[in-house]
């Protein structure tokens, strides 16, 4: 392993997560809140399943250096349940 390789820093640029949210929570509010997370440039939400009280959705978050802890904390604060992380893109800088 070269010295140059060890000096690199990995940053997350894309995360795709499967999330369940209460139906009463407006989608726009959630998308706006996630967009304000550190390092996030873009948020895509697609609702895949609608229940009486909940909605399941696929959230794609893209940015130059996503703060994943803050992202998950925001989801938690908004009353969402993280079901799985389906895709992650990390880039060395």
């Amino acid at each position: 392993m070269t010295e140059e390789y060890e000096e690199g820093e990995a940053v997350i640029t894309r995360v795709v997560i499967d999330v369940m949210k209460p139906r009463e929570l407006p989608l726009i509010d959630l998308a706006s809140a996630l967009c304000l997370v550190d390092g996030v440039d873009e948020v895509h939400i697609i609702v895949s399943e609608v229940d009486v009280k909940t909605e399941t959705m696929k959230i794609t978050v893209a940015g130059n250096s996503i703060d994943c802890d803050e992202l998950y904390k925001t989801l938690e604060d908004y009353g969402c349940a993280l079901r799985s992380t389906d895709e992650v893109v990390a880039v060395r800088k």
Partner: protein
Amino acid sequence: MGYILERVRQYIEISNALEIVRRYFVINAFDGAVTILGAVMGAYISGINTPKALINMGFSVSIALAMSGFTGSLLMELAERGGEVKDLERRLFRKLDNSLITEAHNFASLVAALVDALSPAVVALTATIPFILAYMGIMVMADAFKASILITLTFTALLGFYLGRISKTRVWLYTAAMVGAGLLTAALSLMLEGAFHS
């Protein structure tokens, strides 16, 4: 300040607070109007004619309505909404303590309780104003009774008009129904006087 307003907007949207508050406002303002009308009519047919007695009665009725409204609504809303949050927690497989959802429901419960407390109390206090004027010597007691009853009936008419506007149909019918209930209360109170005198 912008952050607080944004949070309040979210709370209102999530908890559907506006609709509930509107219902509480109308139901309890009407409750306050009819209650104070009944109390004033009771005082009138009983021959209670001192402004001080009517003022004390008006304030006591207002306090009682406010206390009953606040306690009843707060506990009922917290219980009802608490149950809904628990149901949601079961579906989401997580606790919702300290989440926006719980905060929104607690906010709505408190606002509903405040509206439930203030709306009947304000109506009852307003209907007491003529007796305060009589106490200050600005108005005679006979006129104070008439003015108080008129204020109460005006409130019922305004509430009926407001309901009619919400329903977007038959404004006059809602107004007449609300005023009719007030007039019926007054009429039944007067009949009570006849019943006990005969």
